[in-house]
């Protein structure tokens, strides 16, 4: 694990990227279920795969920097409450 502490700005931007990729995955998946032409279907499927790969990258980054710990839920919740407090005090 990289011990270098992420700045607040970088933390916000990386979290934004994580949420954007999450939303993109949902949006592409929904669009696939609405598509009728095979070309569009293939295109959306390819885009979905690359969005999933992008999500994995940004998630991996946040995990390496100790911002996300999917294996220790109580501690993660404490971290999130801390993040929210930091935002409210800005």
């Amino acid at each position: 694990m990289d011990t270098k502490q992420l700045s607040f700005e970088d933390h916000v931007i990386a979290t934004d990227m994580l949420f954007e990729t999450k939303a993109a995955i949902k949006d592409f998946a929904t669009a696939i279920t609405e598509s009728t032409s095979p070309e569009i279907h293939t295109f959306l499927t390819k885009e979905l795969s690359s969005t999933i790969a992008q999500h994995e990258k940004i998630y991996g980054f946040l995990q390496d920097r100790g911002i996300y710990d999917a294996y220790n839920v109580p501690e993660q919740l404490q971290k999130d409450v801390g993040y929210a407090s930091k935002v409210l005090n800005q």
Partner: protein
Amino acid sequence: MRENLGVHESLELHELLTFKSLCLTKSFIMQGLVKDEKLKEIMQQDVNMSSRHLKELKKHLIN
């Protein structure tokens, strides 16, 4: 984590907490770049609403 909350609902609260923190930070910062007065006002409304929501969500998670 509060013991009287379900596991799944705690995780959903966590997700909303992170999402709203992000929205609040973005609206707060981007407000400075906005020129239209009406849009500025809408974003201020968003900042106020998100702050209130975050405080309420936090109350459920800290006990």
